[in-house]
């Protein structure tokens, strides 16, 4: 790269900053419209469709794709697979920012966001699945904050506090796995209340199990996908250990994801059979269901297996991207496409462009904060003052 090009990239007005800046500015305007005009001002939400893209994408996909935090830390600290240690910090950071944005997105989606803490502090609806989701997300966000904090504390030089936090690692990992198991499955359980609204191909009494199991391979694939992007954009921030362990992480996680996807696919077929839903497969919904099951579960499962067998890292990386896309398709299918499927098309929901704008704005905020942190804090490398002390 020439010196002029390097200087241009380091300037404030580089392409990333300009694009991100424009999106943030539009996002701020949309935010003002949302909080001054209410939900009706910028959304197509209605009494028939009270949950839109902010729930489907920002919450359901956000939580599923943030599952890399608990899967990676469980593999490293609970199952003793220390060869994945270098992947823990990036995975925890991704999960922490993911959950933080889920909560931020909820502020847009909930009619009276200032009442979000009510179920925790004021009036507990202990028989509600939504209460359990809220409590778990609230607790897990705090767990992730503490799990992530050693990187920030090393950056700030607060050694005493860091020592205390590092001692909590195992307890926090166990707590994180318990909370994730609970709320990942409960997000699926939310739809059990609407058997007549969700299309029979997607409705199942095993929805909580499907949501939980799919979150595991979503998390593993997201770690591979995030690692691919990080290697491209933050290669200079990675130390030798991180670079050396990278292929172990990719192959190990691909193998795990493949095996779990095979189990998930099998369970989905059993569910189809137990509910005797075969006759729906010939309908247009059935074709889309098969496209999801074969194209976004069976196919990546097979491609992961081929990638692991042939040690084809490029194939695995593309498969991880495809799997992440598949999880997004699945969550959209359950919560939007198959939801209210019996309503006439005029009453079906399609997001307003401003709803999509807010989602793009939130993803951009995620990328900006992620970029800020990994450029400054020891995420992809060990801080020189704390080498070997993890």
């Amino acid at each position, binding site marked *: 790269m020439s010196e002029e090009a390097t200087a241009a990239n380091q300037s404030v007005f580089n392409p990333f900053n300009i694009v991100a800046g424009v999106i943030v500015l539009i996002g701020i305007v949309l935010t003002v419209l949302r909080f001054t005009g209410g939900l009706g001002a910028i959304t197509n939400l209605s009494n028939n469709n009270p949950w839109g893209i902010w729930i489907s994408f920002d919450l359901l996909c956000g939580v599923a794709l943030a599952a890399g935090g608990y899967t990676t830390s469980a593999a490293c600290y609970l199952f003793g697979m220390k060869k994945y240690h270098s992947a823990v910090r990036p995975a925890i950071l991704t999960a922490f920012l993911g959950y933080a944005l889920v909560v931020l997105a909820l502020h847009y989606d909930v009619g009276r966001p200032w009442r979000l803490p009510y179920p925790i502090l004021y009036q507990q609806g202990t028989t509600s699945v939504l209460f359990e989701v809220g409590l778990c997300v609230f607790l897990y966000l705090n767990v992730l904050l503490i799990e992530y904090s050693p990187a920030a504390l090393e950056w700030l030089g607060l050694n005493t506090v860091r020592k205390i936090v590092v001692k909590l690692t195992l307890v926090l990992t166990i707590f994180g796995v318990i909370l994730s198991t609970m709320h990942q499955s409960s997000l699926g359980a939310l739809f059990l209340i609407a058997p007549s609204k969700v299309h029979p191909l997607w409705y199942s009494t095993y929805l909580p199990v499907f949501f939980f199991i799919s979150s595991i391979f979503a998390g593993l694939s997201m770690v591979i996908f995030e690692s691919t992007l990080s290697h491209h954009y933050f290669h200079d921030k990675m130390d030798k250990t991180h670079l050396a362990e990278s292929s172990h992480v990719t192959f190990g996680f691909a*193998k795990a994801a493949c*095996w779990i996807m095979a189990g998930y696919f099998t369970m989905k077929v059993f569910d189809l*059979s137990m509910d005797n839903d075969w006759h729906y497969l010939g309908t247009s919904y059935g074709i889309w269901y098969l496209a999801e099951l074969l194209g976004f579960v069976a196919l990546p499962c097979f491609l992961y*297996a081929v990638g*692991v*067998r042939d040690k084809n890292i490029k194939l695995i990386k593309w498969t991880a991207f495809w799997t992440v896309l598949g999880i997004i398709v699945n969550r959209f299918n359950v919560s939007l496409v198959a939801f209210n499927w019996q309503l006439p098309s005029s009453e079906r929901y399609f997001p307003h462009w401003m709803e999509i704008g807010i989602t793009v704005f939130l993803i951009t905020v995620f990328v900006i904060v992620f970029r800020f942190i990994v450029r400054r804090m020891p995420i992809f490398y060990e801080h020189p003052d704390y080498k070997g002390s993890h």
Partner: protein
Amino acid sequence: MEPVFFTLQDFFTFSKGITYVLMGIALVAMVAMWNFLVGRDEKHWPE
């Protein structure tokens, strides 16, 4: 065409019958899948 069931027992006889056959296939397929997945891994056990 969707089969007609007159009792719950009819329904479960039909759906469980098919599911048990699928489970048998899945058991064999999962072993094959595992062998395909780890077939080229280095062996670590003593010979």
